């Protein structure tokens, strides 16, 4: 348990120290979302209609940017193989890194979503639904993303391939996430969508650490 906390503390410390990476992700998310009104036009009712979708797609793509650094940094300087020689099993190491990535990269995205939601004229309780759906659905982004990152860690130009591998698997999260926000805006019950999102997250929590660990083993060989 002490080594789990040590690794978690170290990863968060590193993410905090390299704050620039986080600001870049947040600024990408803000810029990407503000492009839409410029492209689609300023009519508020149109923006309100496409708001939830734009925010979810923006959050998803911003999260994608941070994925390849999960294992790449440790793989390049030899830390990853030392971690694997430590007491923690590889699955646990992967889980720790996913938690660190989720807290340090995905939570800040969720934190600034309300401000952007207001700029897209999303209805008030739609913003609450947006935060809930992001909170429940975003673990899947980190989990499946970690599998993609582990697969591409030993590749030459892994970044491009990472998005091709991971985005198709993000589609269910996107669909249920946006559906729950639209249900909230239309004053319909959003519980079923959120429950499905929760199911996706739990399912990913069970499968992805093992898949990512298997992918890491062959990368370190």
């Amino acid at each position, binding site marked *: 348990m002490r080594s789990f906390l040590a690794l978690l503390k*170290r990863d968060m410390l590193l993410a905090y120290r390299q704050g620039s990476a986080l600001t870049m992700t947040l600024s990408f998310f803000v810029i990407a979302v503000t492009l839409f009104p410029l492209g689609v036009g300023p009519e508020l009712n149109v923006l309100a209609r496409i708001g939830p979708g734009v925010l979810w797609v923006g959050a998803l793509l911003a999260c994608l940017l941070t994925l390849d650094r999960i294992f790449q940094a440790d793989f390049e300087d030899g830390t990853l193989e030392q971690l694997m020689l430590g007491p923690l099993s590889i699955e646990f190491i992967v889980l720790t890194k996913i938690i660190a990535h989720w807290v340090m990269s995905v939570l800040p995205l969720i934190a600034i979503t309300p401000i952007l939601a207001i700029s897209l004229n999303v209805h008030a309780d739609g913003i609450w639904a947006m935060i809930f759906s992001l909170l429940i659905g975003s673990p899947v982004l980190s989990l499946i993303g970690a599998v993609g990152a582990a697969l591409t860690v030993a590749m030459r130009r892994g970044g491009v391939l990472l998005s091709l591998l991971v985005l198709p698997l993000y589609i269910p999260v996107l669909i249920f996430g946006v559906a729950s926000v639209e249900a909230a805006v239309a004053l319909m019950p959003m519980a079923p969508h959120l429950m499905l999102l929760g199911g996706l997250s739990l399912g990913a929590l069970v499968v992805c650490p093992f898949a990512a660990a298997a992918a890491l083993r062959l990368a370190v060989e």
Partner: protein
Amino acid sequence: MSLYAQSLTCIRQDRLIFNAVDLSLNPGEILWVKGRNGSGKTSLLRILACLLKPATGIVSWNGTDIEEDPEHYKENLQYVGHQDALKMAMSARENLEFWSDYTENSTVDQALDAFQLQPIADHPTQILSAGQKKRSNLARLIACPAPLWILDEPVSSLDTDYIGLFKDLLEKHVRNGGMALLATHQDLSLSRVRQLDLNQISEVAR
């Protein structure tokens, strides 16, 4: 506490690296793995550090195959590879604190003293020289004590007086009942050294 490997074969990217390597290592001994570049020194060490699966052959620690109980075997070994396992954004002290925390030890200060790293312990490793980085990496051997040391070119970027320092530490480790597997080109003229020359083995395998 003895390491024993039988008929190890290594295939990397469909290429036969070495074939039918046997070795044994007992407490108080150093095995010096020699061989020209590409003869598989690093691959052999990585197989023994269970970072690489051999195509055939078994490695056993205290008589039990390491595949059956890798956790126990990993607790007893420390591997120093070509790369310095240091995070550049953290200082040498923070790195060593993490490693000793991670392997549930607490011997950071002895490690820093052993490699005379106290003066530069708090600078970010980014600005350290190659030799200082290598010493910070080697300091992990003291920060996380383990009976078996697997060292791949440990003294490659050290200058002469620090090589002497490392030699004494290595011999002290072996005198206290530890053991070491060493792959290097420099002749460290260590006492109680056995040699394993991969060149002859790869010739036979052709």
